[in-house]
């Protein structure tokens, strides 16, 4: 019998209490239109967190994704905007996906073949890609995303907003990948013991390369459903996302040293972290509350994570 790990329980509990408290304070919180907006808000981060989960379970990290999202959004904007590229939908969509995949591959090659530690390699890419984005946009905004692109972000298919639909799809595929395929099992095996994995002859390099490429591809997917929610693309797009996504993954119970963690936990992490900001607005704490926001966020994260630490120690004490 597989028990739900303590971390997922902790995060789930904090999420539940937060939602309940806010709902009691402001009944508008769980109105369908707000739930819908919250899901849309979560969608791009859920998509990216799936990719990040594999990378972190492998014992690596990708902190270039914020700038990567910025560059991909700039590319999408300049390709699609009638005053710039004016290209058709499929060009834009596949262009962004290919570019994301390629940038992810570059990260992977730097880590796997050039043997640069992933935190250093992707930190470099974080700076480089933001620079390229500024170069592409020249400090100006793309302000005329055409309607067919906007549909990706604000459209609805079968009653479900497009970003949510895409996120569900990505999550389903990722969970299948993680639990039902040999590749998924290899990711966990390599992450928990890289030496043993090598001895057993597992294709460590290929698996890692694929994980970084997947991260890039999913960043492209996230940008495609997120950037078109507004008509404007600016060069600061995606700033800070890398930290947000990594936080979601780690809060969701994935061990930062690799080997452990589940996508279910990560999804709870994404939900908790995405909801906090909106929740604080709905609590109507007044015009000074913003100054407390980060502190409150921090306390909630620590509370969610602490339960896990306590139970880990108990496990160690009984020698489990």
């Amino acid at each position: 019998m597989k028990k739900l790990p303590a971390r997922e329980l902790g995060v789930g509990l904090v999420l539940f209490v937060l939602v309940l408290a806010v709902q009691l304070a402001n009944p508008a919180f769980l109105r369908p239109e707000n739930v819908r907006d919250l899901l849309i808000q979560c969608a791009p981060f859920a998509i990216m967190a799936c990719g990040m989960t594999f990378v972190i379970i492998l014992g690596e990290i990708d902190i270039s994704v914020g700038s990567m999202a910025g560059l991909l959004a700039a590319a999408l904007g300049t390709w699609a905007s009638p005053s710039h590229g004016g290209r058709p939908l499929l060009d834009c969509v596949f262009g962004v996906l290919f570019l994301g995949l390629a940038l992810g591959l570059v990260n992977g090659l730097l880590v796997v073949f050039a043997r640069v530690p992933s935190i250093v390699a992707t930190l470099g890419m974080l700076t480089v890609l933001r620079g390229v984005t500024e170069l592409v946009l020249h400090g100006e905004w793309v302000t005329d995303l055409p309607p067919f692109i906007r549909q990706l972000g604000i459209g609805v298919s079968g009653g479900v907003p497009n970003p949510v639909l895409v996120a569900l799809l990505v999550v389903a595929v990722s969970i299948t990948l993680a639990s039902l395929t040999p590749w998924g099992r290899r990711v966990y095996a390599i992450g928990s013991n890289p030496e043993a994995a090598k001895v057993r002859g597992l294709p460590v390099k290929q698996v890692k390369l694929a994980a970084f490429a997947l991260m890039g591809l999913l960043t492209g997917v996230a940008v495609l459903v997120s950037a078109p929610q507004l008509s404007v693309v600016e060069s600061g797009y995606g700033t800070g996302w890398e930290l947000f996504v990594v936080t979601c993954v780690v809060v969701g119970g994935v061990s930062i040293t690799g080997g452990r963690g589940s996508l279910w936990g990560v999804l709870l992490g994404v939900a908790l972290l995405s909801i906090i900001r909106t929740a604080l607005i709905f609590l109507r704490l007044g015009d000074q509350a913003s100054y407390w926001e980060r502190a409150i966020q921090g306390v909630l994260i620590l509370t969610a994570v602490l339960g896990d630490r306590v139970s880990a120690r108990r496990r160690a004490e009984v020698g489990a």
Partner: protein
Amino acid sequence: MKALVPALLAAALLVVGCGPTSDGTKTASGTGAPTAGKKFKVYLLPKQKGVPYFTSCAEGAEDAAKELGDIELTYDGPTDGKPEAAAEMIEKWVLKGADVIAVSCNDPQVLGPVLKKARDQGVKVITWDADASQDSRELFVNQATPQQIGYGLVDAMAKDLGGAEPTGQVAIVTARLTAANQNEWMVHMKERLKKYPKMQLVDVKPSNEDQKLAFEVSRDLMKAYPDLKGIFGISSVAFPGAAEAVKQAGKSGKVLVTGLATPNDMRSYVKDGTVKSVLLWNTKDLGFLTIEVAEAVAKGALKPNAPYFMSHRGEKKMQGDNVLLGDPIVFTKDNIDQFNF
């Protein structure tokens, strides 16, 4: 080694001296020979060249140069907005024999020493649009004091809400909680809100210079406060983000948005009624006044602490070593098409 330095300086002078016309800068009134009187060489530096805001300032400056007649105006600046590039330009202009250099200062740390050096060599330095440290310039042409902006924003919202006693909940979407400019404006906004006791400030949210975040917090604010009547978007990123949120929520005209931005950025929202008022100073007037002040400084006719400065466009107040442009103007759907920047 020592002999090298003068040689290099001479070479630099030669290089600079060779190419005054090849750098693509605009000269408003030609190189008129100083027969009728001395022409003052005035150099106008924007933070960044090629940006609509500054281009429109430059148009006003060129008008002033034509009207005054004794100004040889050069408008130039770095196209990438890099302060280091601006510093190089200033050094070049000093060598060219500038009378006045007027600077919109992108970085007081980088430009301060260069400006001081220019002053040591007898060049008059003034700042406009963005100030440098006090000891690196003579006067600052100040387009709007924080008080004018703070009061102007609240007054515009009050007028848009209408009635003898403007009533309703309002919220502010700012840049970052640490943004010095915005924080100063908010102090004055809160002060002014006391004049309208039925306008209630319910929340202040940062948008971290991220339009999507500005959009999302504005949307959340409208849902959390169903009676919300107005949103102030007080950065050029927060303002359109807030307006877009109101528009997408279908609340155009029901939740009013106002803030600071160029008319071009907000034109579509003004046209569809989401935004009734956009605040900004008249950029052409700012360029015009800067050149007038430059002329007065060159003639030695204007010193700090003068009671006022007599402009062709009327009397301008002085505040210490600041020449004030006057109250910001409010763009509405009736006048916004007269402005293209």
